[in-house]
């Protein structure tokens, strides 16, 4: 850790101030979710403490969003994201294992093609993929929603990197004990890779929770709509109910905010380790 160790009050004050500036939109979203709809704009001009702290608190927005299809959309998002994380970890870690541990011809080329393909953000290819998935009748299905999230270039890269660091002697000993490749993967490599798997899980989680263009195309039916799409359509209504919009925004945001706050260390490590650290 090469941080500046002298404590400076001025610097501390600037840090807190910057953090507050970044947090203002989220704070405003949160308090607006808890105030009566007609009060959201009333206290903005002139700006006063009441712009940022509700005079009257209400839960009517938070309870109101569950009457329509929004509850279903939140459920869809949670379900799709969980399945994506589990399947994505399975696919990315087995691929990373082969690419890091098993010696086979053209290993580097396979690694390169795979990571580069997966690094192309999925949205770029969404339009032709939509045609293919429609042909396969995967419109308005969970399969269609989940599939694009399971192959992630950063996750493969990160896990391979981690597996390369596990000493060769361990797998040689396991071979002597008669373990096969799968045993080595499952009982030697995975138990040692908790932090790396958690980092990869976070990458997969953030990707799928964020997804917007793909779900918009592949799953327009109300039963399969995800929260990120539902909120946008909510706000596009002719006479939107801002209380409900903020309440829905809060519910969608609070889940990744909690996950990230708790696991920030793993997320930052995962981000940094793909960023050309020396």
């Amino acid at each position, binding site marked *: 850790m090469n941080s500046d160790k002298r404590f400076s009050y001025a610097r501390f004050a600037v840090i807190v101030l910057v953090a507050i500036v970044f947090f203002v939109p989220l704070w405003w979203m949160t308090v607006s979710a808890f105030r009566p709809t007609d009060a959201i704009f009333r206290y903005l001009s002139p*700006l006063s403490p009441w712009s940022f702290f509700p005079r009257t608190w209400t839960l009517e927005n938070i309870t109101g969003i569950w009457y329509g299809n929004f509850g279903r959309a939140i459920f869809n998002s949670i379900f799709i994201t969980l399945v994506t994380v589990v399947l994505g970890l399975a696919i990315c870690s087995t691929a990373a294992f082969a690419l890091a541990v098993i010696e086979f011809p053209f290993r580097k080329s396979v690694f390169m093609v795979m990571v580069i393909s997966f690094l192309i953000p999925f949205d770029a290819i969404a339009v032709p993929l939509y045609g293919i998935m429609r042909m396969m009748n995967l419109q308005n299905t969970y399969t269609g929603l989940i599939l694009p999230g399971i192959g992630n270039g950063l996750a493969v890269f990160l896990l391979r990197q981690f597996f390369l660091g596990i000493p060769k002697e361990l797998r040689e000993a396991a071979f002597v004990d008669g373990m096969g490749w799968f045993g080595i993967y499952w009982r030697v490599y995975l138990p040692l890779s908790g932090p790396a798997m958690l980092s990869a899980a976070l990458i997969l989680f953030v990707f799928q929770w964020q997804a917007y263009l793909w779900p918009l195309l592949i799953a327009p039916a109300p039963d399969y709509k995800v929260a990120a799409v539902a909120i946008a359509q909510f706000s596009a209504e002719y006479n939107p109910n801002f209380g409900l919009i903020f309440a829905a925004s809060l519910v969608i945001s609070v889940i990744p905010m909690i996950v990230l706050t708790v696991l*920030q260390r793993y997320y930052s490590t995962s981000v940094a380790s793909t960023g050309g650290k020396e």
Partner: protein
Amino acid sequence: MTQRSAILAALAFLMPALVSVFLLRLWPAAVAVNTSLIPPGGGGYSLENFRYIFTDPVFLNSLKVTIVFLLIVNPLQIAISLALALLMNTMVPLIGFWRTVILLPVAIPQSVSAVVWGVALRPDGLVNAVLVALGMEPQRFLTSSDQALASIILIVSWIGVGYWMTFILAGLQDIPKSLYEAVRIDGANRWQQFRFVTLPQLRRPLTFVLVANTVANFLIFAPVQILTAGGPEGSTDLIMNTVYTQAFIISDPESAAASTVVLVGVVLLIVILQFRLMRAEDSNE
């Protein structure tokens, strides 16, 4: 273990990922290339669709807007991320918490950020309330063709800079302290330390951020589609929005395919660069 059994094992482990690469990337790319080469009227392969989009004022405007957007948003985000990283590279109480607060927006779906900022940027919204309180004129933001792109830049920067800061912060923490001590003995002041130690040592993380940031900003879609639909007067018509409009609003699959090929081609070049930067670290393999 024999060579053959190793190949079979590798194949078994790689199979699900290889199938995904094929299904989710290579096949759609092939479909896009194929569609892009067949003109609407049929009649064999030609470059007619590309000729069409490169004379289509809407597509050309979208290229122009995208390039202007990237030329502003990339240096801006990198400068802010660097400044944030320098600021946050210190030990003060709760420093992990302050860093997380700045990182939070990246975890929230862009559509939610777009919706919340869309309300904040309304004429009677929060941002104008703050401007007026500071003694400034209220602005039109997303409804003005002069300010809409700047508003989108504000939103995507609020979303992204904490993420890019994380890379630079990691780079800062890797700089050996001895380098600073060496130049300090030579009498370097703070600016000279930054200029002759910090910046050169950050070359790799900064290059990586520039490349990855370019890909991310190139494909910005949700804020544009939700807040402006490319308007007013095409002033925010970024390339992803144009492709989406061609494919699903005006139903012109040939142009959409040609635009997708251009888009994927550019992204592929940048991603290969990104991969080479990621790889350089394990050249010891």
